[in-house]
Each structure stands twice: as structure tokens, then as C-alpha cells.
């Protein structure tokens, strides 16, 4: 492990809670509905984070707790029953209903597992009920996906068939590219988790080789391991380097030679390097500060330093699983400062003091920093854009070069007007 500096910080935070991950999960599984059991705040949070994505009837909603629900718990169970009945009558096409716990439902100890169990019996053969918590007292942002996936594992049937299981939500086009490349490598049995249809859960067993596409799935990985799956240790497929090592690790697990991998992906790499060059020109030597939010920060820092030659000031992450991240941490330059957790005020003090060229942060902080003359990139864009894989390396770099390029355009005086 390289000589990386680890720090922990606690205090007031500026991050999303796990409910936010519903925004991409419900798009991944169009036959599922996500019902948050929470407050008006939860409903307002999801619609605000989803921003412009207002559909006729979204496949997510909130059963808003009211004063009378808080008075007695038995009532709350009955009320939830009623809401679920209404919902299923209205949306008969729903195959899986996620009951999502929130801060208030956790605090009043609403037992969603028991509710789900009862509902499963009643709607047997029609709708499946799964529960997990996306509460902000337990989860940050992407950890919501970890909870949702973990909750699905008990529903996965077992099979000893040898397969490669890609775990973590990917953009559909990226997923298709990956599958094509793996097939070219000679791996034919490839499945994804979460699947595109909630009812098409992959079967798992001792010959399932799990390859993570996202770094925020600690609990899911642990449970898959308990189910006998083999976890392939690799960096994450962000950038050329990460993706190459990721393919190599998978190939090794399937006893495919390195030579074969290079043969298949070399043209991709050459192409990607060319595409990356123009962004590198802008990013090279620029100083980067990453605030914690998505848990993608360490992989992004590795890519932006190793392939785009940016200098790393500080790499924040809301949560650090050193075991899961060890391949990534090994690739970081010496003396990288990683900070787990947050004290947003102290961190912003450090941002201002270090005078960075670019700050990766949440939407609440971006414009205030811009107003102070500091260029920013919103971290939420990383979870909504197709950024994985060799073919997307330049697009990923583009997310960071664009604010700098824009700044350059707006501050330059190339046109002389009289």
C-alpha cells in the first residue's frame, strides 16, 4: 500500500442521504416501485434531487407519516397496508415494491421487515416486497443502492453455474459495451446486478465470480461472499488504467491470458488515449479538492492524477472501506490525503486556504464556491452520467475539464470590440 495519509473528521455535513439513490435505481428497474416510508422532507428531498425529472407518475413515492401515525404503531402498520393496497390497485404493472425506511421511520422503529413479510404473503405471485433503509442517520447517498441490492440477495436462487456477475448500477449502454468486451475475451455467461427487470434476478453460488462496477457496495459484497460467491479484487472501471486492471482481474479469475486481454482492449486504449489528450492538456498540473459524497472520490482522484496529471490536495469520502478500496489506494500517489467523514465548515476553510483550481462537491456548495471564484464540478453528475470503461475515459475527463475550459473562455479577452 502506498504511503497514503488517512484522516477522520466528524461534524456538520453537507451530503445527500441514501434515499437519493432511488433516483437512478428506479430507472434501472422500470418494473419496480420505491415507496419511502417517511416525512414530507423525504418526499421533498427526492423530488429536489431528481430536479427536472418530473414524469406523469413517477415510480417512486413517499408514504408521509402524519401526526396520527406517530400516536400508535399499530395504526402506522395498518395505514401502510392501506397505502400499499391503493398503490398496487393504481399501478398493477409493478412487480417489486421496495419499502424504503427513512430517518423518522427508523427512529420510531417502524418494522418494515414484518410489514414486507405480511404483504409478501398477501400478494404472493403478484408483487414482491423488499425492505431496506435509505435513512440519513445510517446511509449517505450511494449507500442507498448498497442497501437496496443487499435486500435483494435473499431472493436470489442458487446455481453452481460458472458466471461473471457485474454488481452495481451501470448506464445501459456502458453495460452493453462491457458485456461485448467480456464475450470477446471468451466469458460468455455474464449477468448484471441489479438486473434491468427486478424479477430477473441472477442466480448465484460458489461459481459466481463477482466483479464490482461501483465502489460503494460494502454490505452487498459481504452478503454475496456469505452466499459463496467469489469476489474478484480489482480497482474500479473508471479511466483507462482502472478499466484495464478491472478487465485483467476478471480475465485472471476466468483463467484467460493477459495477452488475450491486451489483444482485445489495446485498440480501445489507443483510441481512448487520443481522446483523453485534449482534456489532459487542460487538467494537467491543476490542483484538485474532492469533497465527500458519492464514495467514487478515491477512484476519481486516482484517474485524475494518474491519467490527467492533476495534483491532489485532499480526497474526501463519506465512508472508507479500506479492504474494498485497497487496489485503488495502492494506485494513489504517495502522501495523498484522504479524509473520511466531514466537518463541512473546517473542510471549506481548507478549500479556501489551499486555493484549488477545481473542487468536486455537492449542489448545495457549488454556486457559493463559484461566487468565491473557485471552479466546481457537482459530484451528483458522476452517478447520472455514463462514465465507466475505457471508451468513456475521455467523457469522464470532460466532466472535469469543462468547468475549467468555461472559466477560461469567460475570463479571456480574445475579441476586440470598438
Amino acid at each position, binding site marked *: 500500500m502506498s504511503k497514503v495519509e488517512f484522516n477522520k473528521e466528524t*461534524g*456538520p*455535513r*453537507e*451530503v*445527500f*442521504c441514501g*434515499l*437519493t439513490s432511488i433516483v437512478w435505481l428506479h430507472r434501472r428497474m422500470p418494473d419496480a416501485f420505491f415507496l419511502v416510508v*417517511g*416525512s*414530507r*422532507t423525504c*418526499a*421533498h*428531498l427526492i*423530488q*429536489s*434531487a431528481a430536479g427536472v425529472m*418530473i414524469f*406523469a*407518475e*413517477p415510480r*417512486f*413515492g*413517499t*408514504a*408521509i*407519516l*402524519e*401526526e396520527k*401515525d*406517530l400516536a400508535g404503531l399499530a395504526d*402506522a402498520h395498518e*395505514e*401502510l397496508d*392501506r*397505502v400499499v393496497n*391503493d*398503490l398496487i390497485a393504481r399501478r398493477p404493472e409493478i412487480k417489486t415494491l421496495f419499502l424504503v425506511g427513512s*430517518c*423518522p421511520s*427508523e*427512529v*420510531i422503529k417502524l418494522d418494515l421487515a414484518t410489514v414486507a413479510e405480511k404483504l409478501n404473503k398477501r400478494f404472493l405471485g403478484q408483487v414482491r416486497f423488499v425492505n431496506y433503509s435509505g*435513512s*440519513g*442517520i*445510517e446511509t*449517505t447517498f450511494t449507500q442507498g443502492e448498497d442497501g437496496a441490492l443487499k435486500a435483494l440477495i435473499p431472493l436470489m436462487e442458487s446455481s453452481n453455474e460458472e458466471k461473471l456477475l457485474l454488481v452495481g448500477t451501470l448506464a445501459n449502454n456502458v453495460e452493453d459495451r462491457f458485456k461485448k468486451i467480456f464475450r470477446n475475451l471468451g466469458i460468455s455467461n455474464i449477468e448484471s446486478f441489479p438486473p434491468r427487470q427486478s424479477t430477473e434476478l441472477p442466480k448465484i453460488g460458489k461459481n459466481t465470480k463477482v466483479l464490482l462496477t461501483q465502489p460503494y457496495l460494502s454490505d452487498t459484497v459481504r452478503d454475496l461472499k456469505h452466499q459463496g460467491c467469489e469476489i474478484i479484487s480489482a480497482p474500479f472501471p473508471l479511466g483507462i488504467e482502472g478499466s484495464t486492471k478491472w478487465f485483467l482481474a476478471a480475465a485472471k479469475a476466468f483463467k484467460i491470458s493477459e495477452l488475450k486481454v491486451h489483444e482485445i482492449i489495446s485498440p480501445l486504449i489507443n483510441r481512448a488515449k487520443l481522446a483523453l489528450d485534449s482534456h489532459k492538456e487542460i487538467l494537467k498540473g491543476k490542483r484538485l479538492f474532492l469533497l465527500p459524497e458519492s464514495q467514487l472520490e478515491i477512484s476519481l482522484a486516482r484517474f485524475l492524477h494518474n491519467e490527467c496529471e492533476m495534483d491532489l490536495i485532499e480526497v474526501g469520502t463519506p465512508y472508507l472501506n479500506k479492504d474494498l478500496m485497497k487496489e485503488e489506494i495502492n494506485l494513489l500517489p504517495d502522501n495523498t490525503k484522504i479524509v473520511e467523514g466531514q466537518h463541512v*465548515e473546517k473542510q471549506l476553510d481548507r478549500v479556501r486556504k489551499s486555493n484549488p483550481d477545481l473542487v468536486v462537491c*455537492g*449542489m*448545495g*456548495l*457549488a*454556486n*457559493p464556491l*463559484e*461566487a468565491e471564484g473557485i471552479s466546481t464540478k457537482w459530484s451528483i453528475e458522476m452517478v447520472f452520467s455514463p462514465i465507466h470503461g475505457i471508451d468513456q475515459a475521455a467523457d469522464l475527463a470532460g466532466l472535469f475539464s469543462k468547468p475549467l475550459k468555461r472559466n477560461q473562455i469567460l475570463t479571456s479577452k480574445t475579441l476586440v470590440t470598438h
Partner: protein
Amino acid sequence: MELTLWTYEGPPHVGAMRIASSMKDIHYVLHAPQGDTYADLLFTMIERRGQRPPVTYTTFQARDLGGDTAELVKKNIKEAVERFKPKTLLVGESCTAELIQDQPGALAKGMGFDMPIVNLELPAYSKKENWGASETFYQLTRTLLKEKVSSSDKINPLRWRELGRRPKVNILGPSLLGFRCRDDVIEIQRILSEQGIDTNVVAPLGASPDDIERLTDAEINICLYQEIAEASCEWLKRNFGMEYTNTIPIGIKNTIEFINEVHKKLDLPLTNKEELENKSKLPWYSKSVDSNYLTGKRVFIFGDGTHAIAAAKIAKEELGFEVVGLGTYSREMARQVRATAKDLNVEALITNNYLEVEDAMKKAAPELVLGTQMERHSAKRLGIPCSVISTPMHVQDVPARYSPQMGWEGANVIFDDWVHPLMMGLEEHLIDMFKHDFEFVDGHQSHLGHTATNTNKNLNSDEKKEKNNKEGIIWTESGRAELTKVPFFVRGKVKTNTEKYAILRGIPEISDETLYDAKAYFN
């Protein structure tokens, strides 16, 4: 428990944030878990603010719950006060913290600070955003002015004469995330100033606690948005005898009425009454021949109480529209909206469920929708033009240009914003004239993009099949042929009306003659 897919209003603590963020030298310590920090983006992204809201979130986690969350509250209060040095501190809790009952307000008061502390108790499980904003502004006003209550006499609204100066008023209610508040304030100040009236304080937008303390330097209060300021205005009236205005100056008639009301309350003679009629272009634009086609346009209105009521009045009295639906999500203003609806012979829709609003919109078959951003989406799906008149805020509702809703310029803005989505009169006339030319592509409505042709498409593509509706009524060949000749922008309405007529008369098959019978019947 209430199933909510989308909500017009946030929780009450977001209302408190609106007040805190609107003001200067105030800090709000909010006992809340990390996810609640999402609310910052409402201000930094939607309002494009260059400052963070002055809010510290205590960020308690599950593991803190077994321990001492009260200590955590105190630590955050201490740090926030040291760092931000506010002149007044707001302390409150969000939905989750309300359940663990740490009473952060009481904790703060026990910490020995000498600044005023406002303890906000905003019940998250029964109240909503606008109520939270109103309550916060009220509690803040009360806290900062309560010492003055006993010592001061009632304020005589005529005292400006004795004091030998122009009359002074406060403008209360404008806040961040309020609809066009920034520009309404400028417009209203300009109007008052023209009438020889000075503005003492604008609050909460741009005010500091010091400004709140000098509210009583004014003679009367202008209650610009009842949702936010009425409770405070009422308290100021009760305790200081300060009168406040009831007329919301949106539209020409209401602006004139507002000016009258202010003059009456201040006993200031109104000398330029005739002039007022010509301050805005709306009356003439509405009277000009091109606006003839606006007559009787069916309009559906939904929004917050203040803007929905004002829109109904303008639509009916100033533009000559027919109001076919009126509603609000502001339960606090349900009574007033119901009264307005009654005058218009429609039933008021009071709901927080946007799907109910969409259903009502569909049934009313309007030609124009005036609503929130959500009604804009619904109207788009139904192929109906829409103009946005109310919060909840969207980044588009914070335009770069000066764009008030109130006063003279507000009336100009309203005329343009409501009428442009409709086709211009001449254009409509031409389309009607040329609709049988082969160049004329049915469904060509450039102003609606490609979303408006659903109803036409259905009709055209179904031409070979019999079109049976739920009641089992059949459109015959001749009936369908006649229907396609009806201009597309009223075709949906004609179809509904004809079917309604057929059901009424027990006619099983609709022919071209039925269509004309129905037309005559509904005329």
C-alpha cells in the same frame, strides 16, 4: 399516512430556511440528520444564490441516538455562534429531531448567549413550508419587538403629518423561493414612492434583525404575501395598532385598489387617479382589436392562494377570459379561494395532489392553463398552452430580466406571459382560413413543439377502426369526417361536448348532424 408522489410544498423547516436565508446577520441551527442538507440546493441552484443558506445542520447519526444528542446540539450551536457571529439565532428541528425531543431551542437559551434566540417549534407531521415560513417570521418579529410592546402607544397612521415628513410603510412578506418577490419589491417601492410614500423596511428579504426592531418607525404595513406575512401583520396590528393592507397589487384593478387602500389608511389624498389607468399597457393591449380572440378563452387556474386568486380576477375582468377551474394547494387560504370560485361559478379545488389537479384540468378542457411548474408539465402532456404563475420554484422562475408580477410592470409581464402561449389572434385567423390548403399540416403548432398532437394523432390513426368510447357511443364515418374539419385547437373540446350531448340525448351513433346538434345545444 398519505401517499405522495410529488409535493407542492416542502416541510415547515424549509419555510424557516427561506426566512433565515432571506435575511442578514441571522443564523439557523437546525437539529437534523445529514440528508436534510439537500435543502441548501433550493437556494444555491434554483435561486442561483452565491451564498450558502446560513444554516448549520447538527448531522446526528444512528449511533448518536443511544448517546447524548443534546450535547451534539450544544456543540453545534456553540461552533455556529463563534463562527458566524449572528445578531439573532434561530434554533429548531426537522422532522426526525422532533421525534427525539432534545428541545434544542431550550438548550440554546440555557447557553448564556446575549443575542436574541428564537425557539422554532414547527410541527413537521402536520404543517408545511409556507406555514413554517409564516410562523418563523412571526416568531422572529415577536421576539425582537416584544420589549417594545408595553412601552409604546398605539401607532397613529396619521402621525406622519405631525412629524412633518412623508408617510412610511413596511413591505412585509417577500422572501427567497417566493414567486418573483425580488422584482415585486422594486415595483411596489417605485409605485409607493411616486405617490409620496417612503419604504421604511422590506422584510424578510434583505432585512437584518436591526431592521425588524425598527418596523414600528412606519405608520402601516403592506402585507405583500399573505402566506408569509399575515400572521406578523396581525400581531403588529394587535400590539402596536399598525394597520395593514389586504389588497394584493397583482393586475391593474387590484393595483389601483391597493393604491387606494394605502392612501385611505394613511389619510393621504389620491391626486393622480386618472393617471393610474394609463400606467400599464395591459388595459389598451386587452382592448385592442387583436385581442378580440381572447374573449371567452377557457382558462384553468391552480397555484398558491395569493397568485391563484389574483389570476382569476385578471383573467375574468381584465382579459375577458372564462375561468373554468380554480384551485390552490395553500390550505391556509382555502376559504378565500373558495369565495372567489363561488363568484366565478366554479367549484374550488383544494388539494396537494397534482394528479387530482391534472384530472380536473382534463375535465375542464381549458384553452389555457395558469399554474405551477407541475401544471406546466400536465398541460404539456394534454397539449394545452400554459403559463406559470406560482411557486413551487423552478430555475426558470428566477429570470435574469426584471419580471415582476405586481404593479404596472407586473401587469405588462402578465399580459405577455399569458397571451404569448396562446396563438396570436391574427395567426389563429389565418390558420382557420388556410386549413384546407394542402400545405397546411394538421397539428402544426410551432409554439407547442411536438407535444401537442396526441389527440389529433389518435383520431387520425384510428380512422379505420370504429372509435368506441367508454359509454359505447360510436362515431360514424360522417361524424369522424366532420370532426377532422374542426380546427385542432378546439377539436378535443368539440369531441367531448358532442359525446356528452349524445349521452344526454341517448344517441348511440354520432353523425355529422349530431355534431352540429351538439354545437347548437352548447352554444
